[in-house]
């Protein structure tokens, strides 16, 4: 026979998991915002040395991402992002101005090239901008392969840890004892009152037991009472009929 209490604890577990998901979602949103901030900071740094790259950047998606993430809880971080964003925007406008200026100076550049016959001057421009690429042709492929394996293993471990945490939220018989904490005498009186109220209704479905409680706070309060009564063994759940019924145990 299926333990009817198990089903109820699964329901409770579901709510706990839901809460865990909300926390996780908030965490992910915060991480995304931080990534966005880092990206803007990177663009800001890049813009100071390389305005050409800034021209290639489409900033609109960044602001769209920002508006999709932002809520009152993340206002501080959002303000930092907006500060960096507007700073980059002004730099981008400067870069566009510079680019337009450069385009308008096509004629000037052509004139310069046509008229300047000083090879040393022209060549000096090349020499000033010369750079040497850095290549590591002899890097050990076995070392890199090992690094790659370590990286994959590290990511795998991280995933395993997440799964382990998720598994900890599932309900084994030992842990169910701690899921619903014992409470004060006052609570027990309220629980007893509720128990006495539902005795005439049993056996019946959960919806009927909670029908009088329309407010969400009341609904969950009395739902938790039902869980306590099930844990105490005073009532049981029959999954086949989807009904709660009284047990022989007395309070």
């Amino acid at each position, binding site marked *: 026979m299926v333990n009817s209490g198990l089903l109820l604890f699964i329901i409770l577990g579901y709510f706990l998991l839901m809460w865990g998901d909300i926390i996780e979602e908030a965490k992910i949103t915060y991480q*995304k915002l931080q*990534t*966005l901030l*880092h*990206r803007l*900071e*990177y663009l800001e*740094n890049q813009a100071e040395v*390389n*305005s*050409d*790259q800034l021209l290639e950047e489409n900033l609109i998606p960044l602001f769209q991402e920002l508006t999709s993430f932002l809520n009152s809880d993340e206002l501080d971080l959002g303000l930092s992002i907006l500060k960096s964003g507007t700073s980059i925007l002004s730099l981008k406008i400067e870069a566009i101005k510079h680019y337009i200026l*450069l385009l308008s*100076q*096509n004629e*000037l*550049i*052509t*004139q*310069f*090239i*046509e*008229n*300047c*016959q000083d*090879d*040393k*001057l*022209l*060549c000096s*421009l*090349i*020499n*000033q*901008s*010369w*750079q*040497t*690429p*850095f*290549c*590591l*042709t002899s*890097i050990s492929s076995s*070392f*890199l392969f090992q*690094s*790659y394996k*370590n*990286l*994959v293993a*590290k*990511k795998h471990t991280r995933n395993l840890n997440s799964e382990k945490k998720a598994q900890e939220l599932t309900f084994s018989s030992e842990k169910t004892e701690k899921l619903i904490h014992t409470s004060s005498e006052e609570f027990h009186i309220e629980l007893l009152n509720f128990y006495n109220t539902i005795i005439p209704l049993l056996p019946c479905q959960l919806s009927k037991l909670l029908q009088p409680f329309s407010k969400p706070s009341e609904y969950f309060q009395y739902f938790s009472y039902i869980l306590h009564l099930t844990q105490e063994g005073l009532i049981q759940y029959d999954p086949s009929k989807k009904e709660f019924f009284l047990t022989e145990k007395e309070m």
Partner: protein
Amino acid sequence: MNEFSILTHLLSDSHKLDDSFDQPPIIGSTEAQIMKALGMRGKFAKLHLVELLNTYADSIRVFGLYIRKNPLNHHWFLTKSSAISDLISSNPFQNRPRLGATLMVIISAIFTSKKPVDKKYVLKLRKKVSIDHDLQELEDMHFIIVSNSTVSLHPYLGYCLDLEHLFTALENSALNFDSNQSLSSSSPSSPTS
């Protein structure tokens, strides 16, 4: 640190395509290649890549290394700062101003016309009897591609020249040249010392 190991390999790797042994190597990697190698997927993959490149750039700066993007083939690669580079030995134009000037003229002409330029036009700009030898040498160095009568830039040039810096220097030189000419034309009788 493993990400950095892989990134170092990807950005400093130089390899030749199987069917182009006479061509220069392709250095570095594209964004797509880096993201694939690091297993970056999803909507925020590019954001993560930028963040990683930023952190990596900060880390390698102390070694005199910088990350650059080749605008001609969109590969990210590493460059050495002038402080740790032997520019005299690495720069083929140090004692060859004529060859450097021809390349400068080709780059300027392509930049202003936004397309490959005609050889005759380069010859006209250079005001020389012939530039065939220059073009042949530049093509052998894999800086330009000469096809029939047109000249275009080889992607390998983007590794050796900081093109953005070059255009800024060119713009400044053009402005200075223009202002000097204006001065000389406005005061033709000014005494020369």
